[in-house]
C-alpha cells in the first residue's frame, strides 16, 4: 500500500515517534501547531513542547537557548515566516553558534493554495542556503521525510527541512535511507536529465513517462539535499546527457536550479534550463490550479521540456 500523505503529516507523526526514544527532543511552534502537525508531539509530551504565540523571531531565539543548553530542538511554523520573518535571528542565534536547532517549516511553495502570495514562500531555499553551514533538505514524499528526520536527530547542528501542505504521492519505498548530501536517481534515460526536489518530484517522474512517448528519453534525479549538493552526481549526469533541467516549486533564483548551476559552471559546463517560479510572487487559487498555472504539473513540465528542446 502506498503512503500518500503530506510531508507535514509525515513530519508530525515521525516527530511524536522520535519523542519516545529521544528524551532530549524539545519541540516549539508559533501558533500553527495544528497546521504544522507538531500538535501530535504536544499531546504526547506536553512538558517538552512550547508554543511562543505568533512570534517567529522569538521562536528562533528561544530555540537557540534551549538547544545550547543540551537539547535537540525542532521548531515549526510556515516556511515564509520561519525563513523570512526570522531570517536574521536564525543566522545570528542558531547558525553562527551552530545551535542544534532543526527548522522544519511547513506550507512551503505555492501548494499553500488559497492563502496566496503572503503565505507562499518561493524564496526559502535561497534564504536558508545563503547562511553559512546551514543544511537544506527538501523531501519528496512521506518516506523521504521520515528518513531525513532519522538523519537529523543523529546529526548535530542547524538544518532546514522544507515541508508541504498538500498531499504527496509516494516516490520512495519504506526502506529508503537518506544519506547526507546524496541525490537519488529515480529513472534512467539517455537524452535529458530532469533534476527535481520536493512536491514536484512525482509530477517530474510522470512527465518523463510522457516525454518517452514523444521520443525523448529522460533521466530523473531527486535532489533531496540542496545543501550540501551532490556535485558528483550532477557532474556524472551532465556527462551523460545533452541537456539538463531543474524542476522545483520555488523561485528559479537561488533554488535547486541555481545550486546545480553553481556546480556546473566550475566543474562541468553544460546547458541547464531552470523550471520553477520565474521571479514572481505566487497567488491565491486551489493548489492544483496553481501547479497547472505555473506549469509544474506532469503536463506542464513535459510541455516546458519539449518547448526548450524545440527551441535549441
Amino acid at each position, binding site marked *: 500500500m502506498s503512503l500518500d500523505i503530506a510531508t507535514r503529516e509525515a513530519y508530525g507523526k515521525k516527530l511524536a515517534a522520535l519523542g519516545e526514544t529521544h528524551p532530549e527532543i524539545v519541540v516549539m*511552534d508559533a*501558533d*500553527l*501547531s*495544528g*497546521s504544522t502537525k507538531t*500538535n501530535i508531539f504536544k499531546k504526547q509530551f506536553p512538558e517538552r513542547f512550547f*508554543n*511562543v*504565540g*505568533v*512570534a*517567529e*523571531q*522569538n521562536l528562533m531565539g528561544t530555540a537557540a537557548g534551549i538547544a545550547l543548553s543540551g537539547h535537540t530542538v525542532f521548531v515549526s511554523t510556515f516556511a*515564509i*515566516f520561519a525563513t*523570512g*520573518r526570522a531570517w536574521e535571528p536564525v543566522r545570528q542565534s542558531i547558525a553562527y553558534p551552530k545551535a542544534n536547532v532543526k527548522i522544519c517549516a511547513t506550507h512551503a511553495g505555492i501548494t499553500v*493554495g*488559497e*492563502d*496566496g*502570495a*503572503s*503565505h507562499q514562500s518561493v524564496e526559502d531555499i535561497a534564504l536558508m542556503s545563503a547562511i553559512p553551514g546551514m543544511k537544506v533538505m527538501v523531501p519528496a514524499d512521506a518516506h523521504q521525510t521520515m528518513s531525513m528526520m532519522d538523519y537529523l536527530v543523529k546529526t548535530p547542528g542547524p538544518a532546514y527541512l522544507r515541508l508541504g501542505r498538500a498531499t504527496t504521492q509516494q516516490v520512495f519505498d519504506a526502506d529508503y535511507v537518506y544519506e547526507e548530501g546524496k541525490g537519488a536517481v529515480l529513472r534512467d534515460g539517455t537524452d535529458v536529465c530532469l533534476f527535481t526536489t520536493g512536491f514536484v518530484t512525482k509530477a517530474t517522474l510522470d512527465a518523463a513517462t510522457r516525454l518517452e512517448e514523444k521520443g525523448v528519453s529522460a533521466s530523473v534525479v531527486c535532489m533531496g539535499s540542496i545543501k550540501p549538493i551532490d556535485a558528483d552526481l550532477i557532474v556524472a549526469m551532465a556527462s551523460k546527457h545533452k541537456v539538463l533541467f531543474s524542476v522545483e516549486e520555488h523561485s528559479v533564483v537561488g533554488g535547486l536550479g541555481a545550486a546545480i548551476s553553481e556546480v556546473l559552471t566550475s566543474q562541468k559546463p553544460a546547458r541547464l534550463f531552470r523550471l520553477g517560479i520565474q521571479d514572481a510572487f505566487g*497567488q*491565491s*487559487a*486551489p493548489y492544483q*490550479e*496553481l501547479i497547472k*498555472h505555473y506549469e509544474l504539473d506532469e503536463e506542464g513540465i513535459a510541455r516546458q521540456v519539449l518547448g526548450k528542446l524545440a527551441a535549441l
Partner: protein
Amino acid sequence: MSKSIQELQDIANEVRVSIVKMVHTANSGHMGGAMSFADMLTALFYNKLNYDPKNPKWEDRDRFVLSSGHMCAGLYTILAKIGVFDEKELWNFRQLGSPLQGHPKYNLDLGIEMSTGSLGQGLSVANGMALAARVQNKKYRVYSLETDGGSQEGMVWEAAMLAAHYKLDNRCVLFDYNNVQIDGFCSDVMDLGSVADKFKAFGWHVIEIDGHDMQACCDALDEAEKVKGKPQAIISKTTLGKGVSVFENKSKFHGTPPTDEEFAIAMKELGN
C-alpha cells in the same frame, strides 16, 4: 454618508452574512476574526473615514490598514458596499486571477491600502503613512486594525513606541481583542495580559469599549479624533465568530470554512 446606529447595526449584519458566504463559496478563508471586527469596521467606514469611494486614490483621504490581513473578507465586503468596486467581485474571492486575494494585495483602485497577511507589520506601515502626512502638511488620519494574536509579534510594540515618540495624533489603532488565535484562546497560548495597560505604558491615549456596542464604537472614534499629541488605541472586547452560535469563541473558526450545515445555521441566525 453618516448613518444611524440602527442602520449601522444592519449593515454590520450584512457584512457578517457576506463574510460567511464568501468563505463558504471559496471553501477556504477566515470568518471568525472578520466577524468579531465587523461592527467597528462598519462604524469606521460609514461614520468616520474621510473617504471618497469614487476616488480611492484621493491624496487627502483617511487611510485604513488591515494589519491582520486574514480578516479581509470583511474589508472587501465594506469596500464593495460603499461602491469602490462591484459586489460581484466578492464571489471570486481566493480564486485564480481574482484581485481579491486570500490576503490583501496592495491595489488602490480597489481601496486596498496595503499588502498584508504576514502578521504584525501594518502598525508600522500605518505609522509611516501618518509620518508622511506630517511631512506633507496633510490633515488625513490613519487607522489600522490590530489583533490579539497578531500583536504577539514584537514589531507591533516597536511601532507602538514609535507612534508615541513622534506624537502621532493622526494615528489610531482599532484593536480587536477577541482572545482567540489559531491554536486556542490567547490567554492559553500566549497571554497578552492587559493590552490597555501596555498601550498606556507606551504613551498612547487608550479607550476601552465593548466592540459589539455600535454606539460605543462611534463614540470611541469621535473621542479618538479629538486627542492631541498622542496616538490613540481603541481596544474593543469582541467575540470571534460573533452572531453565529456554532462559530462563537471557537478557534476552529479562525480559519476553517463552514460545512453546508453550519452555513445554513449561520444564514438563519444572521436572519438572511
